[in-house]
């Protein structure tokens, strides 16, 4: 079943065409990679899909609903979560509170209940606490529940960011260069983590990545962007041998 259709998206920034005629059809349960050299427009695509930018042209449809002009918070509530290229945690909040924030709209109590600590408040808070701890447990972060997010190691911060995104119960998860700044061993662990959550949470995942081994290892389908245009699309093996892709990444071959 098709989960998301992106049709003919174009994004102009004062004359700079960051993305041009981008199309994407995501099937439920897919794990797709979006690659391309620096400045190719990958993050711009993510920002359009999550409502940070409204595209100059084109539409984004998610689960049958046109979300092109929705605000990020509305988009999150309709079932899309993302992580960021430069980790964006709530640095001065505890690990536990980072997760609790992600459950904010599952809590229905009003301010009145919060002030009086009514049974409804207590019940919802304890439900949230329990679910948050379970989520931390899954990501092996529970022992650090009381650490400030900024005091975690880099790898743990990445894990927490993914855990936090998953806590909003998305159907589609967008990961923006999760392996950025990681060494070979760490990115291998990350690969493992991504394919694990893909199965465990029964998710659709769209992944931006620079590390070729990560993308080639786990993605079912890959899309390559260069200068805002889609230059190739296919399985990892097809992409690996596509001359256009090699050219975009390594430069043109020169005959002597």
């Amino acid at each position, binding site marked *: 079943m098709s989960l998301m259709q992106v049709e003919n998206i174009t994004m102009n920034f004062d004359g700079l065409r960051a993305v041009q005629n981008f199309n994407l059809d995501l099937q439920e349960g897919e794990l797709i990679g979006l690659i391309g050299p620096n400045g190719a427009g990958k993050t711009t695509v993510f920002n359009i899909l999550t409502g940070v930018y409204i595209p100059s042209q084109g539409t984004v449809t998610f689960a049958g609903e046109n979300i092109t002009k929705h605000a990020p918070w509305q988009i999150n509530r309709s079932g899309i*979560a993302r992580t960021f290229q430069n980790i964006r945690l*709530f640095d001065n*909040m505890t690990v536990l509170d980072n997760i609790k*924030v992600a459950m904010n709209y599952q809590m229905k109590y009003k301010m009145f209940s919060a002030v009086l600590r009514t049974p409804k408040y207590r019940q919802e808070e304890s439900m949230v606490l329990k679910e948050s*701890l379970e989520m931390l447990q899954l*990501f092996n972060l529970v*022992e650090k529940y009381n650490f400030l997010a900024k005091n975690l190691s880099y790898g743990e911060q990445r894990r927490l960011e993914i855990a936090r995104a998953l806590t909003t119960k998305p159907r589609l998860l967008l990961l923006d260069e999760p392996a950025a700044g990681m060494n070979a061993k760490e990115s291998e662990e990350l690969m493992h*983590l991504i394919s694990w959550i893909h199965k465990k949470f029964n998710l659709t995942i769209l992944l931006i990545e620079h590390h070729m081994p990560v993308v080639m290892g786990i993605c079912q389908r890959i899309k390559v962007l260069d200068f805002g245009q889609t230059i190739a699309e296919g399985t990892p093996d097809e992409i690996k041998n596509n001359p256009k892709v090699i050219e975009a990444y390594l430069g043109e071959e020169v005959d002597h």
Partner: protein
Amino acid sequence: MKIIKSIAFWTVILALGILVEMLGRFEYINPYVIQVLELIGINIILVSSLNIINGFLGEFAIGHAGFMATGAYLSAICTVKFHMPFALGFLAAGLLSGLIAYLIGVPAFKTFGDYLAVITLGFNMIIVNLLNNLEYVGAARGMVGLPKSTNFIWVFCATILTLIIFRNIIFSNYGRIWTAIRENTLAAEMMGINVVRSKMVAFAIAGCFAGLAGALWGHMLQYINPSSFTYLKSTDMLTMLYLGGVGSLTGSVLGAVLMTGLLEILRDLGVWRMVIGPVILVLIMLTKPLGLFGSRELKIVQPKSDREEVQKYVSHAGRKHNNEL
């Protein structure tokens, strides 16, 4: 057992308040000292409400005296012009100031960046100029003959209640949302948080309590005039806030107590008092940018039940490692 303990605790606190009030009435305590204590209470309400915006929400509002002015004037109109009981004027002051704050939030939070500082300062000036020219409320002469309705026990209860309400809100979903917005607005929005709406709610609450404090203040001095509510008053509040600690209720209390006390002790210095405040502010910014308490809280402020529950869970499940990862 727990309930009995907390009832006993609050009874003792209330008894202390009544004791001070009684000692004041029979003049065992100097009326001047009582008034300073009342002033401290009012300042605690002002600073902690400002802390919601500047500390927890992470915005920068510098016109808090404007809300205090609307509260003081509205309650004074209620009691002086319409002879209503003070309690009614007090509530009306809170409601109106909260409403005004909410309405100011509409233009202020549609934009982004540092516009809030400019808009709140502008609002503060507009209110003062309006009052200066409104003959109905005495223009620049101000209003006189407010009933002496504010007594120690009023301020005492209002302060304690304010702190309890703020503490409960801050440790709830609402407070977490505000802090998340402060820490990273974009990430907060991607967590499904309607940022503009949350900010406006925070702003309305802060304005409401500033209005309540204004009502108490007016009926303590029995005389109000527009020049008491200029941006200098707002600056006083900022000084107390940044002295105590941004993002900490404990800090707000500490800042209000220290600064109010200090200004009273230095009363003999006359105009030089005006220098002391700003100098302190500069020194704090240089040495402790987050204030004496930073964003930490005393342990009694933090909800206890949470800590116990987490501890139980962690000690029970903490050693189970997820090996699938």
